């Protein structure tokens, strides 16, 4: 091979972006087609530098828009090789058309989405508004809480997406700036370990196999469209989770790091819990511990796999809890929160039917403080004590002005 391996220390100090870039190098991506956007840019800059320094072999196609980035990724993936890119926010929004095309064509592209708010007003900081644009696009969505996760979940993503029983694209989400630009200790894999875990890319229906011409991206109308969409949904619902679990299990054997489809912390005897995504999971874990010292049995549930939605795992994790706060880091814009609705839907037919309330927080990168969470857990305990939701169903926390609540 005509590239050099890189000697890494057992623990490197990396931010989430560089961790993702290192993962892309280690799996030896064949083609990256990308367009820069804050805060995800350093991922593809990192790949470009690795290429320039001879640590990876492949083609880096610096296109003229995010739509073209995913279009190029689709063409490259259909041609038959390992493909990845990264984006955020407005760029992700511009990509949306092609997200559906990539998944409908069953192409295992990996997209690192560094979550950021959506304009207007323009904002470069982290919230989860953009990731919900990918919610119905037929992609697998994994969520990182810290740079270590951003690194590790990329390997999981390639392993699952490229599996011939799956053949679906996968996003790895991390919080803009809070993860992407915050350096932490990241435990590394050696280049050989990382590549070995993901394995060689095995092409299927590849356009560059000239002896077996394939037509990609056909037209289907009312006679076949439904069957195609139903099959894709079926595979998302039935095939992905077992593969994700198997990849998590193998990864634990390799590294000792254990990931779960739904991450439960202090949930064995919890009365009250928050359900959230991203960096907030770590903040909530800190606060839950402190609440326990005060006598409130607090827990945290973090979503690790957002699509396919872990319906059964959520039901199991929240089975015995009495009050739940669902935290939405995106503007609900005229409805209960996106995550709130998912959790409510999962719990509706359960026996426990814990008291459920929703909190909108952190838009445009506004901090979620420990004080916010202390107040929140206290409210949840009050709900438990009263046997009903004592607050409005939807509250905004950390926003200036008069207290904002609905429903």
């Amino acid at each position, binding site marked *: *091979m*005509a590239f050099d391996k890189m000697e890494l220390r057992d623990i490197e100090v990396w931010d989430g972006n560089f961790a993702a870039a290192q993962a892309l190098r280690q799996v030896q991506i*064949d*083609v990256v*087609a990308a367009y820069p956007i804050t805060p995800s840019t350093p991922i593809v800059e990192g790949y470009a530098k690795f290429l320039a320094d001879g640590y990876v*072999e*492949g*083609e880096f*196609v*610096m*296109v*003229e*828009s995010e*739509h*073209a980035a995913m*279009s*190029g*990724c*689709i*063409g*490259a*993936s*259909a*041609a*038959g*090789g390992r*493909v990845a890119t990264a984006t955020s926010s407005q760029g992700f929004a511009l990509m949306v*058309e*092609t997200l559906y*095309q990539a998944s409908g*064509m069953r192409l295992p592209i990996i997209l690192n989405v560094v979550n950021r708010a959506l304009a207007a007003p323009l904002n470069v900081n982290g919230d989860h508004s953009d990731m919900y644009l990918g919610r119905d696009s037929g992609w697998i969505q994994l969520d990182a809480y810290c740079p270590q996760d951003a690194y590790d979940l990329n390997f999981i993503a390639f392993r699952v997406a490229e599996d011939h029983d799956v053949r679906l694209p996968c996003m790895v989400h991390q919080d803009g700036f809070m993860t992407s630009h915050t350096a932490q200790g990241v435990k590394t894999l050696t280049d050989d370990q990382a590549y070995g875990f993901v394995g060689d890319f095995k*092409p299927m229906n*590849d*356009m*560059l*196999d*000239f*002896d077996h*011409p*394939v*037509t*990609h*991206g*056909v*037209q*289907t*109308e009312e006679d*076949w469209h439904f069957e*195609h969409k139903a099959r894709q949904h079926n595979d998302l619902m039935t095939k992905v989770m077992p593969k994700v679990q198997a990849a998590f299990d193998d990864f634990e054997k390799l590294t000792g790091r254990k990931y779960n489809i739904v991450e439960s912390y202090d949930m064995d005897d919890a009365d009250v819990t928050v359900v959230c995504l991203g960096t907030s999971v770590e903040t909530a874990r800190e606060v839950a511990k402190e609440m326990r010292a005060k006598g409130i049995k607090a827990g945290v549930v973090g979503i690790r796999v957002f699509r396919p939605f872990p319906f059964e795992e959520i039901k199991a994790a929240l089975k015995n809890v009495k009050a739940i706060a669902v935290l939405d880091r995106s503007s609900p814009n005229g409805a209960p929160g996106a995550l709130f609705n998912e959790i409510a839907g999962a719990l509706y037919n359960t026996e426990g039917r814990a008291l459920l309330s929703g909190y909108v927080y952190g838009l445009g990168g506004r901090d979620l403080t420990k004080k916010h969470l202390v107040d929140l857990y206290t409210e949840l305990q009050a709900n438990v004590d009263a046997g009903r939701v004592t607050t409005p169903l939807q509250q905004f926390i950390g926003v200036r002005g008069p207290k904002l609540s609905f429903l």
Partner: protein
Amino acid sequence: MSEIKKIKNLKEFSTSADRFEGANLLCPGCAHSIIVREVLNATNDDLVLAASTGCLEVCTAVYPYTSWDASWIHIGFENGSTAVAGAEAMYKALKTKGRLKQPDRNPKFVAFGGDGASYDIGFQWISGCFERGHNMMYVVLDNEVYANTGGQRSSSTPIGSSATTSPAGRVSYGEKQNKKDMMAIMAAHGAPYVAQVSPNKWKDMVKKIQHGMAVEGPVFINAVSACTTEWKFAPEDTMAITDLATDSLVFPLYEIINGTELNITYRPKNVVPVEEYLAAQGRFKHLFKDEYKYLIKEWQERVDAKWDYLQRREEARV
């Protein structure tokens, strides 16, 4: 380096191994299929093809059928160029890494798009592909209208044409803007080869396609595609209308090498008046009313001026 396919005559050309099946849903008399066949038959090399959303795409890849006996991809309306560019990038990557399944082949990367997909919605994507210098050919099937969606104007629709979104009416002669000069724009990208072709002049077409496939870098081909449905002529007249298009010089056949060297490749022995070209098509019918006849005169003047300009460019070699 692949060998250039030798073609003796039309009979041999029309019966050579065909990677685009006659079984498709294009209108009887549609020039698209003729152009595609002429492009594909110009080479024996393997092909990686793309089509943007449009007549060609919806009529040739309706599940569970396909008209394509070559690798083919469709993504969307605007990104046929980038689909092929992505595949070309993968080809380069796998070649470098020694992972091509058939490393001895010389595939050609070709994207087809209508004028709507090329002059309008996919313009940025094409410009990006050409600026980056992908080794690919982009072929516009230029029928001067959004034919697949029922005849809306594009930026290729010529002045005076009646389109559904620029209809001729009691107080309007139809389309008000002149056709965008994509040839000049693509030549300005510094592309190694830019050419206008027409399916009636098949030898000229084959020569240009073969030249385009032989050069390194992005090649732009604008193909005149007479549309029986939207231009409003009888399906059996496609070639007659196309003859009028080239012989009236409304569609002059020429090439631009490296952005500067312009060669006229077809000089009609008898130049036909533009009026005859217009009169043969329903989309221009209203121009023959007394109040709009000045537009026909202006049209002739525009065609003459363009022909004059092309000849001067050819002579100047700049």
